[in-house]
């Protein structure tokens, strides 16, 4: 592990990140902006990996860089990638610029008051965090402290996080989905026919058909092995989702919808959250507080700490299901502008 701070390497990365951010926002061509934004997220993963936050880097790579770029690109696919910049409005931009710089100065005024960067005795690293590191084996028998804190100590946060993903999915569904009635009446497709059609380039199709099984295998490993190595429900779920999105992009949407109908997708999105909430509820029926897996020891194998570890695994599976299918559903909606016929 590199000792911090080799400041030359970090400074370079941080400056690059700021550069990418500025470029992403000033490029005229929106597609270009999306790509630079993807690069910006990748740089972010590097910085976080450099700082020891491996799980976060993994999630950012899968969710931040991977899937959001696909979302932005599929939105642009359905609309127009060129940005007609209108003259004028400079005064307003300057005014906002001034307001923002004042806010920035105000934030920086708190700088000297912060604990030294990287100090291991700062309140954040000394108050609550040590308990997790010291007691994770005794409590949950899960070496990867992040997974144990994620799914058990602060399990309620993760349940709500999964609910956020679930809401995003049904929100986008209810915004974009064009109900069948309008579809049959042959309403003229408002969006212009996209200029370039991905077509069926043989190389892309064969390569993706070859890659998808390995991706899914790796994703299942990530979910199952979340106890011992970086990874977990989110990352695994996103990779599974990404594998199916890869199929949808390389072939066409119909190909994916033949295997996974719209109804099963949306039901499974709800099923994941239901599984998570039901596990919590089971703990209540067993006499403990909500999401207290140790009370499931009569149901799950092993005594109390193993029960917690199995409880965490169950919950991770629930998260994985929801995240996977909501990523797919969101992609389909965004790509096909709610018509579920042909998309990116």
């Amino acid at each position, binding site marked *: *592990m590199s000792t911090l701070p080799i400041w030359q390497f970090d400074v370079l990365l941080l400056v690059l990140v*700021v550069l990418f951010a500025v470029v992403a926002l000033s490029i005229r061509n929106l597609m270009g902006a999306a790509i630079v934004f993807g690069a910006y997220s990748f740089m972010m993963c590097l910085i976080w990996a450099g700082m020891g936050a491996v799980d976060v880097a993994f999630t950012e790579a899968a969710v931040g860089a991977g899937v*959001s770029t696909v979302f932005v690109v599929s939105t642009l696919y359905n609309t127009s990638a060129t940005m007609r910049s209108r003259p004028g409005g400079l005064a307003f931009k300057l005014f906002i610029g001034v307001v923002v710089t004042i806010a920035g100065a105000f934030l920086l005024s708190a700088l000297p008051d912060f604990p030294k960067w990287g100090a291991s005795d700062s309140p*954040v690293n000394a108050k609550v965090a040590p308990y997790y590191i010291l007691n994770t084996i005794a409590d949950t028998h899960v070496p990867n402290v992040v997974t144990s804190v994620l799914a058990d100590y602060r399990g309620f946060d993760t349940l709500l996080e999964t609910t956020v993903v679930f809401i995003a999915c049904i929100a986008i569904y209810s915004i974009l989905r064009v109900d069948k009635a309008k579809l049959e009446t042959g309403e003229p497709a408002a969006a212009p026919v996209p200029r370039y059609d991905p077509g069926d380039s043989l190389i892309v199709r064969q390569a993706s058909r070859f890659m998808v099984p390995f991706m899914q295998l790796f994703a299942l490993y990530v979910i199952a092995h979340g106890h011992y190595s970086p990874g977990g429900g989110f990352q695994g779920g996103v990779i599974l989702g990404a594998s199916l999105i890869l199929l949808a992009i390389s072939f066409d949407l119909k190909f994916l919808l033949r295997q996974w109908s719209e109804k099963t997708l949306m039901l499974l999105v709800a099923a994941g959250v239901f599984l998570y909430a039901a596990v919590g509820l089971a703990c209540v029926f067993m006499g403990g507080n909500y999401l207290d897996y140790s009370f499931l020891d009569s149901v799950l194998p092993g005594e109390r700490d193993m029960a917690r570890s199995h409880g965490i695994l169950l919950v991770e599976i629930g998260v994985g299901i929801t995240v996977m299918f909501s990523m797919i559903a969101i992609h389909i909606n965004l790509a096909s502008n709610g018509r579920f016929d042909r998309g990116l």
Partner: protein
Amino acid sequence: MEKLIANFNYVIVVILMMIGLWAMLAQKNLIKKCIGMAIFQTGIILFFISIGAKNEAKVPILSKSVVENSSAIIVNDYGNPLTQILMLTAIVVGVATLGVGLALAQKIYQQHSSFDEDEILENQRK
């Protein structure tokens, strides 16, 4: 010099946030606003992570040897897990908001065939 390096992370965090905030408020293009929003959120995530970073700290996964006798765990060897899981939530929330924003932008484009806020306002007023 030492002081500047030590707090370099925070300066970058503030710069990133201000770029994001500026984009959200000043940019007229809806997609640029969404990208600005994502940048603003990643800025905050960088802030949280840089609080929890520890010098010479390993990834917070307890090695095989320590799993047997849990008394040998030295807290300062391992990174801070708490800030990391907070940021897992923040990233996922960021993506969710981005998705909803893009869906709305798409629907607005379908109505006004333009992403530019001023054109949309004129169109609405007609």
